[in-house]
């Protein structure tokens, strides 16, 4: 095979050589001396090709817009996602108009003003009024885009915990190449952690001396979140940078070792409803990793199930029995002096 490849390359080169020779010979026969000179015929052909390209290019784009429309992400499944999509579409309309007009002018001018020896180009070096016009118009467009964008940005980036908004708190921990989630339990407070405490079953390094951690429980592979309640994800990484990417909710934030980051959104469509909307009974919301993190970066995921609130409560009550640290009696919770040492975790 390698021999065949070489042969193919060699044949290609030889063919090209012949093409050149043929061009040279044929023009020598015609008595043309300088083949590189651009002739009227060339200008006509190339100008026409630009016109054809213009048409073909726009058709190609239009075809993609139609053919690929259904391949894009389905309707946004969070409140924030809907707002982002709205602004995204708004901006797309603006840039699409610019894209079409300017590309049209470019290729159309290329066709229209192709060389003609009977014409002289217009000596037109400057027009300040025009220049001001096309400084001001993009300026205005940018101003609108900036204002709308920043308004949304500051709302997306607000900290609902600081603001005292109602939320459910989940910690997402990234590592090569999987996600783990820690739910905050009944107190909705996550216990402290320290990477040096990572050992055995306590694979998130949760600090068992922090009472907040006693009701925390962890999950891998699949998590549930309730529809209609703000979900606050506290993000961290055990090893290198990852990025928690929830495409269906239009949400993303990096997970950085040594740093605390967060994201939050309000799910609005349950997994079941989305299955109906997408007419795909196997549809799942997925959390992906979107920062290069090594060999299995392309396969680092977690299923996210959005369910109605009552189903969520049922599920939650079941899962929360599985706390990280097994305390025998609720009494333990009330006597902080008694130390739930990390050893207790070893037994599972």
């Amino acid at each position, binding site marked *: 095979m390698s021999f065949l490849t070489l042969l193919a390359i060699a044949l290609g080169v030889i063919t090209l050589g012949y093409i050149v020779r043929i061009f040279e010979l044929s023009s020598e026969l015609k008595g043309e001396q300088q083949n590189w000179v651009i002739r009227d015929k060339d200008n006509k052909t190339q100008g026409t090709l630009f016109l054809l390209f213009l048409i073909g290019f726009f058709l190609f784009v239009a075809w993609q817009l139609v053919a690929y429309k259904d391949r894009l992400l389905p309707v946004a499944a969070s409140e924030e996602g809907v707002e982002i999509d709205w602004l995204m579409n708004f901006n797309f309309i603006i840039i699409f108009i610019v894209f079409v007009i300017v590309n049209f002018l470019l290729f159309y001018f290329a066709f229209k003003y192709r060389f003609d020896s009977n014409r002289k180009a217009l000596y037109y070096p400057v027009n300040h009024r025009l220049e001001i016009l096309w400084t001001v118009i993009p300026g205005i467009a940018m101003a609108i885009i900036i204002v709308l964008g920043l308004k949304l940005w500051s709302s997306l980036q607000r900290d609902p915990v600081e603001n005292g908004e109602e939320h459910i708190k989940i910690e997402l921990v990234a590592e090569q190449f999987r996600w783990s989630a820690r739910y905050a339990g009944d107190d909705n407070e996550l216990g402290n952690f320290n990477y040096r405490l990572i050992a055995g079953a306590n694979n998130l390094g949760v600090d068992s001396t922090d009472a907040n951690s006693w009701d925390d429980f962890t999950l891998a592979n699949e998590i549930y979140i309730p529809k209609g309640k703000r979900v606050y994800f506290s993000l961290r990484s055990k090893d290198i940078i990852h990025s928690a990417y929830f495409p269906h909710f*239009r949400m993303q934030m990096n997970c950085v070792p040594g740093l605390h980051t967060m994201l939050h959104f309000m799910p609005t469509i349950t997994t079941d409803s989305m299955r109906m909307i997408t007419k795909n009974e196997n549809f799942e919301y997925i959390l992906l990793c979107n920062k290069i993190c090594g060999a299995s970066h392309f396969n680092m995921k977690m299923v996210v199930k959005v369910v109605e609130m009552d189903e969520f409560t049922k599920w939650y009550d079941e899962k929360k029995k599985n706390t990280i640290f097994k305390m025998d009696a609720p009494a333990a919770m009330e006597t902080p002096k008694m130390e739930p040492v990390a050893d207790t975790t070893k037994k599972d």
Partner: protein
Amino acid sequence: MSDHSHDHQHDHDHHGHHEETWVTKYVFSMDHKVISRQFLITAVIMGVVGMLMSTLFRLQLGWPGEKFAFVNWMLGDHWGKDGIMSPDMYLGLVTIHGTIMVFFVLTGGLSGTFSNLLIPYQVGARDMASGFLNMLSYWFFFISSVIMLVSLFVASGPASAGWTIYPPLSALPQAIPGSGLGMTLWLVSMSLFIVSALLGGLNYIITVLNLRTKGMTMSRLPLTIWAFLITAILGVLSFPVLLGGCLLLIFDRGFGTSFYLSDIYIGGQALDYQGGSPILFQHLFWFLGHPEVYIVLLPALGMASEIISVNSRKPIFGYKAMVGSMLAIGFLSFIVWGHHMFLTGMNPFLGSVFVFTTLLIAIPSAVKAFNYITTLWKGNLVFTPAMLFCIGLVSTFITGGVTGIILADSALDIPVHDTYFVVAHFHIVMGLSAILGMFAGVYHWFPKLFLRMMNKPLGYLHFWITFVSAYGVFFPMHFIGLAGVPRRYYTNTEFPMFDNLVDINELVSVFAIIGAIAQGIFLFNFFYSIFRGERATENPWNSTTLEWTNGVEHIHGNWHGALPEVHRWPYDYSKPGKEKDFVMQTVPLEPGEIDGGEHHRP
């Protein structure tokens, strides 16, 4: 300019009888024309390597799991067993592809070739300010290229953390095999590369500022030179920051410091690093990284200004606005780097500042695009192959530029950050524009580089296949990105949600292969024309600038006898009242004739 004494000195240096051996003439040459060709040929070789890599991973992405003898042949049994590349190798190839394309082809190659060739020629200097530093600049570039290529053959694989080499991934060999020896070589290579870029950049700046010939005022500089000057300033101000960033990374990797590392548990072990921040590296990287995209782009835009004006037989529209917008872009490019970091948990207010500054750049960019188009308007367009490439460049500059508005808007960046939407954006606006500009430069200035002409029909063929397949490759990638596919994924098959993208990926890969094969046409034309091309004439494109006034030969010192004197701006094409449709810069103004376009009333 007080160039008179200078001329004198040079005449002595260059026309005195010192022995030139083959080695000093073609290898360790201090002549800008030779160095320029050395840069070009090295860049062509690096470009072929970078392109072959992209073909390899496009095979993987288009037909994942398919066995390709070609892949096995290229990668061997270890990385391409049975013709399927390994995930580690995929990341290695993506990383080196990005590094080679951005730095070696479009920074070293593009500026190295054309700043070197055109600065002395177009400002009317005998050579660069320092021929010796110029020679060093090339040889640092050469060594760094060799090291980068050698790193591909390391047993643990080349650097694989992406061209942005974010730590901790790039700092810890436990995290990815490529962060072993491969990463060390990458850092060594890039450090040498930066030295080369700095030596070259200083030289370019000093030459433009000090060695302009008599009459060549700043406002008579061709836009190419303005572009090269601003590019060089950007490089000199920003590359040292990357060098600093790389040095700290070297310390973290080798000497146990914790600049970028903290709280890491990996490979079943808690590491001792404490107190560093991985985000610090990103700040240092992008402080270079963003100006870098203009370092790549501006020379291409500058050459396009020149080539479009020449072949429209019309002055460039808005010379001052073109210079002003390049200065504005250059300045702004230093205060926008945070737009690569919106999702690192940066303070949302800081993010807002970066949104503002970034979207400001859209304004001078729009001015440039409109000015190109107005230059075409009512022109008399001569379609040389170079002109075709420039028109292609303006198109990709627009098409890729507008999607930047989405990415710069932090709220909208959230769902598309690091997806194929970004890959589409930066390839079109930076990769394609700059590559098309570089091709344009090669076709246009080939007569100055090699004293021969490139073949015209092959040039046309090369342009059309390249341009069509370029859009064929990168336009559909927008949709792949909007479907949520992250970049740097080895395959999309692990997610049912991406199953309906298979045919788009195939389409992209088919175009990529066609595009790659089309570069064979260029390579053939290029090397064939170096040796067998038709002899050039002195001023084949009827341009006005100085490089077309010194015959069809490579003269040591660039001009026999005295240096040319400049009397007018470089864009007197189709000036009313002139017999020919171009007036050389060396032609004195007629009595009462006004120089430059500023005061012209049509």
